[in-house]
């Protein structure tokens, strides 16, 4: 059996070893897992709506949405690049609006609709039009930034379904690609916009 990093992380989570993996991931930050609640503050156990599913999860007060998605819910399609609201690799939709999930406290998104790259495809594994366009155009090189770009584009296209190339470039300007593959990415995402118009 080959053991990819992705499957390892998912396996750890599925195996109920969240507490121990969290202690590893959050080391150096003190005994966070044992912190107590003060009166008037928020509960740590909360309900999130992620990709149409209701997920019950224990979240630290200071935990970012990117950490919750990746290491509590196993949704590793959301990437962590800079963790500083600069690169856009962690972009997810919150109520249809693109956000840097590295810079959102999970406790601030209770009751809101979160969509990650895993939530784009239709039942039966039919890719979202923007995903299909990326496959067709082969717009990315290493593709680490791909989920963030796709989520930023899907969010932007909800506000402007018929962008010019310049408008779409502006719409996804909050995302970085270290391969400097911007031109091809933009071509792929423009095709995604076209596919979306066809399907609706």
């Amino acid at each position, binding site marked *: 059996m080959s053991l990819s990093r992705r499957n390892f992380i998912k396996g750890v989570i599925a195996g109920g070893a969240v507490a121990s993996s969290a202690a590893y*991931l*959050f*080391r*150096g*930050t*003190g005994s*966070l897992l044992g*912190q107590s*609640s*003060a009166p*008037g*503050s*928020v509960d740590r156990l909360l309900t999130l709506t992620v990709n149409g599913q209701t997920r019950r999860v224990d979240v*630290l*007060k*200071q*935990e*970012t949405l*990117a*950490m919750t998605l990746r290491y509590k819910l196993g949704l590793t399609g959301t990437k*962590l690049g800079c*963790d*500083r*609201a*600069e690169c*856009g690799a962690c*972009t997810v939709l919150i109520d249809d*609006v*693109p*956000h*840097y999930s*590295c*810079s*959102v*406290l999970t*406790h*601030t998104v209770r009751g809101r609709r979160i969509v990650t790259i895993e939530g784009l495809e239709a039942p039966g594994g039919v890719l979202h039009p923007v995903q299909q366009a990326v496959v067709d155009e082969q717009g990315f090189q290493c593709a680490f930034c791909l989920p963030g770009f796709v989520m*930023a584009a899907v969010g*932007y296209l909800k506000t402007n379904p018929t962008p010019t190339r310049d408008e779409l470039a*502006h*719409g*996804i*300007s*909050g995302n970085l690609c270290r391969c400097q593959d911007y031109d091809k990415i933009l071509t792929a995402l423009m095709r995604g916009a076209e596919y979306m118009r066809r399907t609706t």
Partner: protein
Amino acid sequence: MSGGAVALPEGNKSMAVIRDVMPAFELFQPTSIEDAQAVLNRYGAEAWVLAGGLDSFDWLKDRIRRPQAVVDLSGIAALKGIRERDGGLEIGAMTTLTEVVRHPVVRERYSILLEAAEAAASPQIRNQGTIGGNVSQDTRCWYYRAGWPCYRAGGNICYADTPESINREHAILGADRCVAVNPSDTAPALIVLDAQMVIRTADGGERTVNAEDYFVGPGVNITRMTILEPGDILTAVRLPPTWAGARFYWEKVRDRQVWDFALVSVASAMRLTGSTIDRIRIAVNGVAARPLRLAAVEALVEGRPRNESTAVVAANLAIEGAQPLRFNAYKMPLMRNLVKRAIRGVEATTWTS
């Protein structure tokens, strides 16, 4: 940069610290301004006000600030939304920059604020960052942000103003020990619109100040960017009809056209009769610890024709008294040229060095 005897932030002492979450804090999510202030008053200096979070999380993730309590204002409905008021607009402090940009009345009558808000940061940040946070954000001086014990941090030295300092982005005007600059894009636009900042004070009262008086330089308080006292909350920004629909000019010069903070930005609002400037408001940012309204320039050009010679005289006056640091002398011609453009318009002016 070498550590020497200077105490470095804790995160720098050891290798391989996983820095992706913040230190533990107690989180409060009040639904009213009163409840938020009760928490702020209870925790005093240990409390941290969280708006959009884009400035806050850097401080917390870098372990430079370790508040005991974080008060998230996003659940307070009274701080959100844009309303018509007294012939102008009232923008709740927790209104996102994207909401400001998309508002039809902002677009129609206060388009300079649209331009300024649209120039801030990146789409994702504008979707989350608030107008209250944009005007209240801390300076980006990296010596200060890295936790160096400078004047602004309560120490007795400025690391950005030494012979070896990297100070390309720092101040050319109004420096007083600290040479940091204000990073806000909306601030100069709000100043020329004569915006009023509405503040709920720690004792529950309300006060309103002119936008230009909301910001403080190091000579007034070296540890703060705004007049907000501990426990105060900026609740709204009011735009009076005074400058609605005026002839506006906005420009922000930065290294990268997305995400970056301004090297220098300029905003102007003008009322003309024919080609004569009747009234003008002009402000710049990125050159001092606070956004500067250029009152002397305004006084000089009012009543003059809007032409090249007026713009040149005004631009020279604007940078009078400027004192560059080692790496930021370029800001003097940059500011001069931006002031020229803000008076004359972009096509008509020629750049001068």
